[in-house]
Each structure stands twice: as C-alpha cells, then as structure tokens.
C-alpha cells in the first residue's frame, strides 16, 4: 500500500529510485544519483505526478526517465574521468591498458545502439514478428499504429510487444549489456 501522508508519492518514488539504482551503479553513488534525479523531479514542480503528463508521457514514467538519464550521466562522467586521467609517462596512450567495461557500464553506452540493432536483426532469423515490430518502433512508429497495421487486436499486440522487448533484453544480456 502507498503511504498515507501528503508527500507519500515522493517517499515511494525515492524508494523505487534507490532500488533501481542499486542494481545499476556502485553502492557509493546510489544515494547521490537518487538525490540528483529527485532534484530534477522536484524542480519540475510536480506536486503529485499521478495521472499527470510531463513532456507527453505519464509523469511517473517521466520520473523514471529522469533516473535513467541520471544513471547514464554517471557512466558518461566515468568515461570522461578515465579519458582525462594522466597517462603513465613513457607508456604511449594507444598501449595504455584500459579496463574493459563491465556489463553495468555497457548498459548506458552508445555502443548499445549498435548491439541493439544487431540483436533485432538476429531476432528476424528466429521467426515471429518481433524484429518487424521493433524495427518499426526504431523508426518512430507508435505501438497503436503498428498494431493497426498488423491487424492485431490491441490487447494481444501489447502483450506481444512486451515479450518482444523481453527477448531483446535477453539478447542484450547475452551480449554483455544489461537492460
């Protein structure tokens, strides 16, 4: 059950943010990133985001997007930190060993795009409609339009789409990228 006091949604949101962040970033930055994400949410002036829209999407989903951006920023910051760290004198940069990215780091990189497109193409070889649906999403088509175009009832389509995303996540996981 949700908490009953007026600020309950914020307490609940904080709890969810912390739980999600703990699975994706090192423990020592979880609290900081959660604070950053909550700051952006609060600055937007959401007194109770339930049943409201922000930037054309449900406000709670928007809040999760803010958290996703914040976690992505963390990994970008880490890459910058690594790229600007002083090199060891006498060791040319191209030969300087770089620590491989962990799956957690890979999650938020732009390399994800390439892997993602390859994974969708791989799904095309295993039959079904997932690859087509996902490619249409990549091209910006709305789910309802894809369902109508495919002649599939909306309820069935949304379930299929969820499973397609699940399969895609599994493929990304197998390639070292968590989603």
């Amino acid at each position, binding site marked *: 059950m*949700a908490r009953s006091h007026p600020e309950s949604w914020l307490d*609940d*949101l904080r*709890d*969810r943010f912390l*739980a*999600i962040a703990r*699975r994706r970033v090192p423990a020592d930055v979880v*609290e*900081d990133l959660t*604070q950053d994400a909550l700051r*952006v949410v609060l*600055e*937007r*002036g959401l007194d109770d985001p*339930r*049943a409201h829209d*922000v*930037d054309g*999407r*449900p*406000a*709670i*989903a*928007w809040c*999760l*997007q*803010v*958290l*996703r*951006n914040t976690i*992505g920023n963390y990994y*970008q*910051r880490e890459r*910058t930190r690594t790229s*600007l*760290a*002083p*090199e060891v*004198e006498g060791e040319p940069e191209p030969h300087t060993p770089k620590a491989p990215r962990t799956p957690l780091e890979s999650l938020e990189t*732009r390399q*994800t*795009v390439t892997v*993602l497109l390859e994974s969708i193409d791989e799904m095309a070889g295993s039959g079904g409609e997932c690859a087509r649906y996902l490619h249409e*999403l*990549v*091209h*910006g088509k709305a*789910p*309802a339009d894809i369902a109508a175009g495919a002649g599939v009832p*909306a*309820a069935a389509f*949304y*379930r299929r*789409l*969820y*499973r397609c*995303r699940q399969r895609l*996540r599994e493929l990304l996981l197998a390639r070292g990228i968590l*989603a």
Partner: protein
Amino acid sequence: MTSSDDLADRDERLERYLAGDLDAAARRDVDEEILTDDAMAEAAYASLNVESALAEAGRARSGALRPVPVSRPWWRAQGWRTLLPLGAALAAAILLIPRMTPAPDGTAPTFRGDDAAEIQLLEPPVGGGPVGPTVFRWEAVPEASYYRVEILDDTGRLVTEEVVTDPRLDLTPDTPRPSLARGYWRVTAVDARGRDLRGSALTRFGGPAPDGR
C-alpha cells in the same frame, strides 16, 4: 503466487501505459503500482531503457545522433611532452615553496551533502534567464587543475560536457552546444591526478517549463 495470466495482464498494462493508451483510472492504478512495487518499477524502468535505446537507434539511423561532446584542456590536447620544461620548473617550485593548502590524507575528498564544501555557482543566477545562458561562472578552487562542467537538459540528460582550466565557460558559436532555454548545470573541480576535489550542487538555469512547471 503470480499467475501467467496476471503477468500477461501486467505486461499489457505496462506497454499501454508507456504508449499513453490507458484510460485515466487504469493509468492511475499503474502509477500506484510503480510507486509501491519494486518489481513493477523495475519492469517499467527496463522497458523505458529498451524504449530509449530504440529511440536512440532511430536517431542514429536518421543521422541525428551525435555523441555528447567533451572538450579537452589545451594542455591535454597538446600532450604532456610539451609541458615537460614547465613541469620541471613547477616541481622545483613545489619543493621550495611551502604548500599553502595541506594535501589530503590520500583519500579522495567527498563533497556531496556538505554545503560548505560545495563550489558556489555565480552565473547564471539560479533559475534565471529567459533564454539559454552563454556564460557560466563559478567560484575558483585554488587546488584545481581543471574543471569539468556538465550541462543537462530539463529531464536531467547530459547534453554537453566541457573541460576548462578557468572558472568560467563561454559557450560561443564555435563551441558545440545545445540550444537550451532551461536545464541544469554542475561543476566539478579536478586535481592534476584526475581526482575530484569539490563539486557544485546540480543547479537549475533558465525559465519555467512550457507547461508552467
């Protein structure tokens, strides 16, 4: 125990929710579930993650995707070897002149949650300016070797990251920059070994969002 029917129902509602295809009552139920149930919040976040990656792939295909630009300080861009004579002189000075600021005990300083240690941001004023600012200024940190400046849009997404040696960033037409009427920024002071010394709070600039929020 969660049945497969329950899961299928959840999957459908979540997809509809993210697609904006739920009536108000059903949507409020999903809002409530996300806020109170870790599994639902995780499922929503994971779906958003794939959705964002799909959208990013779409932008990449259309050629609209560009990596977040990161500038490098001139001394990094030109390489350490050009600074060797200067470095030797500096090393001598460090040995001869008593240090004004004691070195920390070897551990990286922490600054989050410690207001007194935060870098004070000077310009633009918090929340100020009807259009995107072109000049950012902040309190100098004497021990800093350079500053990392992050500029975020109003959803907290990093859009520009700059590295400068002075406590000031001018976004000129030559600087890759977002067109931002509002957003957030933050500065981190970094020492010569690449360690974060102090940082500012994440701070808003620009006017209110178009929806008045």
